[in-house]
């Protein structure tokens, strides 16, 4: 195909960055340039199906981390190498918050400006950055700070993600930080920055025997496959290989496992429909794009027990007859990515991935992919598009992933937490697993407790536990404070009042109460919380994270933010009731007519806050 470019030439360093990703694989057979028109011969179709377009995000990451921004020349060069039209490459790059398309200081601090960090005991990062450095987005001698959505360190609060470009380049997620500790850290060379990877699992000290999914967290060496194996690791895979794919799925069915990603779909049904699909190849994707505000469970597993995810995905691949697995990790989790990548390569070395796994004739590879700052990429079909090197716009369903998913092939996709449940099921057997929890919500669930509780952290409890019991496990409300409300399920969830602590945290329990478990978020707000600002922030979050594809969500999230701003500022159009009626109409169209779950749930928390009388005076 002919591609026309419009920028200048790429620098040697920019070319090197692109080549570091693409030269590993087959390059186009020829790129002939004649002025600004290049003939790219790939022997692949125009739309890159089956081509190398899926290297677009990895290559954009390579340019971003080495150069600090993506210039026109670099973008053109990358486009030519992959045979992707420059306009499309630009469309992709401009979709993701972690890519900069204008010259940017080499150090960028993403200061968490989301509800959990604002509500945490520590200082609000965006506020202290603003005090120290002034308004965001300006060049402060090679450093720039910008506001960030939730960074998944809610149990500690005061989180910041630092991207430093150049050689060496580094990304690090720090928490808790304050203005001076962050400034001290930034003065050091980046290889001396110290990651704080403390995993707050308070039950470890008090009730370790209750831990099933978290049993190895804080116990094993996350870098060592031997340590993992000496704690029961790879026994479930051995059992899976012994009993065969159909029986693995039967165990999952007996266990009545439901997906933990939010939709609570029966895992066995999903696996079975992929396994039975005659179209080849099959793929299996682990969704580790955890971005729901208030959620940090998947990060803790990735950082502390990475092999369990690799093993869980391998079993899923085996059961569904998949040739290849992908783990898509949000770009804000550098340590999680590092440890997962290490786990994949260790497993490969030990014959637990690759060809003829455990000598049993099963072949399976795993590729790790990095997100680039887009909450919507956690929607499964948007995630496929992102892996394929496209804008993370959700697809319309049907077709469902099991019919036509990644690269339009039958694809299984599960959240991190769902996959590690599979290990437990194969260890104790499906029927025994089904005895845990309630009859309709089996097993245990991970809960992310943050905000005004004495012991914030990651908790594991059988389904059916009362909300109040879980709060007690976390040491109750911060001393001297009174409970105002709890955000259940994340920004896409809903607020519940102090009189609802008897809600049973099971799929049927929350359904009866008209709320959702979502991603297991339990964010606690005390009497001092400024709820107006909290709900406004939630509305802004969805406004910023909407992909913009469909009208109800693209314009609806904008109008919702404007409407809440008016209510909070007391500048309503007409009466407050008029505004609430309008809110109802906007949220209805978003719920009924948006393409995906983002738009469909974006107004939930806001509406629940008004129902509880929490907001707007």
């Amino acid at each position: 195909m002919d591609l026309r470019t419009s920028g200048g030439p790429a620098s040697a360093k920019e070319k090197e960055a692109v080549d570091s990703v693409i030269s590993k694989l087959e390059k186009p057979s020829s790129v002939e340039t004649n002025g600004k028109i290049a003939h790219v011969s790939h022997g692949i179709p125009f739309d890159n199906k089956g081509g190398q377009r899926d290297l677009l995000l990895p290559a954009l990451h390579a340019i971003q981390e080495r150069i600090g921004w993506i210039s026109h020349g670099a973008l053109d060069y990358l486009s030519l190498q992959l045979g992707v039209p420059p306009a499309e490459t630009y469309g992709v790059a401009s979709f993701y918050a972690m890519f900069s398309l204008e010259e940017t200081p080499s150090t960028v601090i993403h200061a968490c400006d989301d509800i959990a960090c604002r509500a945490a005991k520590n200082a609000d990062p965006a506020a202290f950055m603003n005090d120290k450095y002034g308004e965001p987005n300006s060049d402060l001698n090679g450093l720039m700070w910008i506001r960030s959505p939730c960074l998944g360190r809610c149990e500690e609060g005061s989180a910041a993600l630092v991207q430093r470009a150049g050689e060496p380049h580094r990304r690090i997620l720090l928490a808790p930080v304050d203005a001076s500790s962050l400034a001290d850290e930034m003065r050091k060379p980046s290889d001396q920055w110290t990651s704080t990877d403390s995993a707050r699992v308070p039950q470890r000290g008090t009730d370790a025997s209750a831990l099933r999914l978290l049993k190895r967290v804080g116990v094993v060496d996350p870098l060592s496959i031997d340590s993992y194996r000496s704690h029961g690791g790879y026994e479930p895979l051995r059992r899976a290989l012994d009993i065969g794919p159909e029986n693995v799925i039967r165990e999952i069915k007996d266990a009545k496992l439901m997906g933990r990603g939010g939709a609570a779909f029966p895992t066995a049904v999903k696996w079975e429909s992929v396994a039975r699909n005659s179209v080849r190849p099959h793929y299996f994707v682990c969704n580790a794009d955890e971005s729901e505000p208030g959620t940090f469970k998947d990060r803790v597993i990735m950082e502390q027990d990475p092999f369990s995810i690799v093993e869980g995905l391998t079993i899923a691949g085996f059961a569904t007859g998949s040739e290849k697995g992908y783990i898509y990790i949000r770009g804000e989790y550098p340590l999680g990515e590092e440890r997962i990548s290490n786990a994949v390569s260790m497993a490969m070395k030990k014959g637990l991935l690759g060809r003829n796994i455990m000598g049993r004739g099963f072949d399976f590879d795993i590729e790790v992919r990095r997100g680039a700052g887009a909450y919507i990429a956690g929607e499964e079909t948007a995630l496929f598009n992102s892996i394929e090197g496209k804008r993370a716009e959700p697809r319309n369903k049907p077709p469902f992933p099991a019919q036509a998913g990644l690269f339009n092939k039958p694809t299984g996709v599960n959240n991190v937490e769902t996959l590690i449940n599979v290990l437990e099921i194969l260890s104790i057997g499906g029927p025994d697993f089904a005895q845990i929890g309630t009859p309709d919500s089996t097993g245990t669930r991970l809960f992310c407790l943050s905000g005004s509780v004495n012991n914030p952290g990651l908790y594991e409890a059988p389904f059916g536990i009362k909300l109040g019991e879980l709060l007690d496990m976390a040491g109750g409300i911060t001393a001297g404070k009174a409970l105002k409300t709890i955000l259940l399920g994340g920004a896409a969830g809903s607020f519940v009042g102090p009189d609802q602590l008897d809600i049973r945290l099971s799929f049927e329990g929350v359904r009866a109460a008209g709320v959702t478990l979502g991603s297991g978020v339990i964010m606690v707000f005390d009497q001092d919380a400024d709820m107006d600002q909290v709900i406004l922030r939630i509305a802004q979050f969805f406004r910023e994270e909407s992909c913009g594809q469909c009208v109800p969500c693209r314009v609806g999230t904008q109008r919702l933010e404007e409407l809440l701003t008016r209510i909070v500022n007391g500048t309503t159009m007409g009466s407050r009731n008029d505004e609430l009626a309008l809110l109802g109409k906007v949220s209805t169209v978003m719920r009924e007519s948006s393409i995906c779950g983002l738009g469909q749930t974006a107004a939930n928390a806001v509406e629940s806050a008004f129902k509880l009388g929490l907001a707007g005076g």
Partner: protein
Amino acid sequence: MNDGIAVAIRRSVKITLDGKEVAAPEGSSILQTCRSHGIDIPTLCYLENLTPVNTCRLCMVEVEGSRTLVPSCSRKIESGMVIRTDSQRVSDSRKMVLELLASSVDMSIVSPELGAWMERYQVDKERFGPLAAPSQIGDRGKTRAGHHHKNDGTIAATVAEPTRVDNNQYVRDYSRCVLCYRCVEACGTDAQNTFAIALGGRGFEAHITTEFDVALPESACVYCGNCVAVCPTNALMFKIEHDLRQVSKWDESKQTITRTICPYCGVGCNLEIHEQDNRIVKVTSPLDHDVTHGMLCVKGRFGFEFING
């Protein structure tokens, strides 16, 4: 003897449409089925010669058993489906979708059908407050994804910006752009395979753009004008029409349309020559024409200046 001859036998599927049982060929969309039964469904991003992207969410209908409404343009009918196209739920959704659009996009020059639908649903474009003033060209595109400018809520944000006039063939007024993706599809695999434009940015700042927003003459654009032909809201407009409208001389009532065949090559594209005041003001091609499906190349579309000259 059937070798090489595809005999398409489409089974018939029974569904219930607004309370009436009807049969339609398997594989039809809900929209096709409705239209063939005389049911009017408003559409915006849908065009029969392009792949449905179902982003405008105007054609939503109710399907029994579905939690949400369903886009009729892309959803295929299934045996036993119970569909309602006329419920309160459906018309509330359509009204609100149109109001969300009209509050953010200039929809003052749209097709007669779209105009009629806006009237039918009594669209109030100022429902969310007075509309914001235009921004500078290119400003919306410069916003980093996830970092928007917050307003105080008393004015409704819009996509308004000045018209881009950077070539002699057509102009781009993104104030009128509803992001239906039609132009991107026509420029891409659905017709032209030129890929000069794409969706850039995210959320409310999503917009149609060339790479780094370069002007069209620097982009890959080949001026086939197919993007203009498929645009439903005149965000893309031929330069002649734009210029005539600027001086209030564009008058469709004075125009005649003559159908002919393009003389430039042997493909046989049908042309519709739009003439006003003894001057060719626009060239289109019928959507239902076997050869063009509404698409032309630069010669057929723009190669008429020598006549006017």
